[in-house]
């Protein structure tokens, strides 16, 4: 409920827990910078947690869900790059 949330002071207990998420680091590789757009809404441990069982098609479906259902402001031209990065580093048959 947004109106309420805006009215309360958002210096929440959540802040101190969320600072911990900087410990979660995605693997180096081309496309990593584009994948970091995900942090607008969630910590990137969602990516590790969902590895390694999705192929590139599976990761593409996940990214498209984020854009089409959750409204993630990821440019369409970045989808291919991010899916390629995730498939390579966090994909079913990607680098271990």
């Amino acid at each position, binding site marked *: 409920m947004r109106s309420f949330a805006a009215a309360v002071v958002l210096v929440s207990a959540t802040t101190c827990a969320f600072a911990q*998420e900087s410990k979660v680091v995605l693997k180096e590789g081309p496309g990593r910078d584009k994948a970091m757009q995900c942090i607008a*809404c969630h910590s990137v441990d*969602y990516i590790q*947690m969902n590895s390694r069982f999705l192929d590139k098609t599976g990761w593409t479906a996940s990214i498209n869900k984020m854009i089409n259902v*959750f409204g993630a402001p990821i440019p369409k031209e970045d989808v291919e790059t991010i899916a390629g990065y995730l498939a390579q580093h*966090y994909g079913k048959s990607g680098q271990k």
Partner: protein
Amino acid sequence: MKSQKGTASRRAFVAGLAGAGALGLAGSLRQALAAPVGGTAELGLAELPDGALAEQYLYALPGKLPLIKKTYRPPNFETPVEYFRTPITPNKAFFVRYHLAGIPQVKAGDWSLAVSGDAAERDLKFSLAQLKRDFKPAQVTAVNQCSGNRRGLFEPHVPGVEWGVGAMGNAVWRGVRLKDVIAKAGVKAGAIEVVLDGADHAPLDKTPDFVKSLPLEVAMRDETLIAFEMNGEPLPHWNGFPARLVVPGWTGTYWVKQLMSVKIVTQPEKNFWMSTAYRLPRGKFATPTFKSQLYAPNEPITAIVVNSLITSLKSGQQVARGKPIKVKGIAWDGGSGIDRVEISGDLGASWQRAALGRDLGRYSFREFSLDLPGRDSGALVVMARATNSAGETQVSELIHNPAGYHHNVIQRLYVEVV
């Protein structure tokens, strides 16, 4: 990587347990004993995805004990298995599950609950003090279990929060009846659902707000509460302070936290969280039907399926020759109540009834225990199978579904007698 090699071995180990011929994998046994935090192979179940295992560890949110961190933001934290050795789950160990990262710190004095909707006779607003003063208190002991508890054990894996066994807990909830609050507003003819919204919100405006609905008849049950207290204390912030919905028997998705708004309506609520998420293929489970939500080929998840968890043994454990093997744990279901829990020490060839613990109510965890007779050196597979009063029982094989709900596969714990 070492951890992945270990996981592969555990996989093989678990896979091997599917058949009776696998009772001698000493090497894999060592791997299972060295299981990572929150691993499920050690519980005699399929293992979590490699990446989930590698990324999870114990971490304490403010006011909580160290729990199994699945994700930081939004916060998703699982209760470690040791806290299920008592029938009531401590507040500080109770799991945390959010969909959206905006979680306000609500002050009890600032909070209010709005009741409205096209099927409400009048719009009302209550402060916490008014709710407590104007309505009769009510209490229920009930399991709150995430719909996706054990999702991480699905094979093949499905995307989502890769929960192990601890996205659940049992507590004594105290508050007021939702039906009393609804009655004060008055219900017009044609009301079919009650729509519930909490204070949480998404970082982006475009993300669908987490809003859920219940059939009117479930909202009007005596045991459906607006709870302020959990186990005799105010709700923890992470579990919905200052007030949350408690829907005994139904999965956690309906238990809206930081409840702000109740709407009595004449049309089905069709936001993303009702029309697309939290749905099951039709006809795969014998759970109640959400009649006003049957406008799609699938249907909403509703009641919890019967399940159990052995908490006294770990797969790969060694026990002393000739000594009884203590099999203890908890069983629960969607409100029929647990009729019996049976234990097998021979991979399901024969079953013995366990003793049930004190009955804390039909929505609660029910303890069970049985001593299997001492044995000579060798190996055995221990299983527990709960059956509820409706005659429903746990399954041997997973009923796979796309979103990973209702995992109630029987454990197969490998125990070595030495």
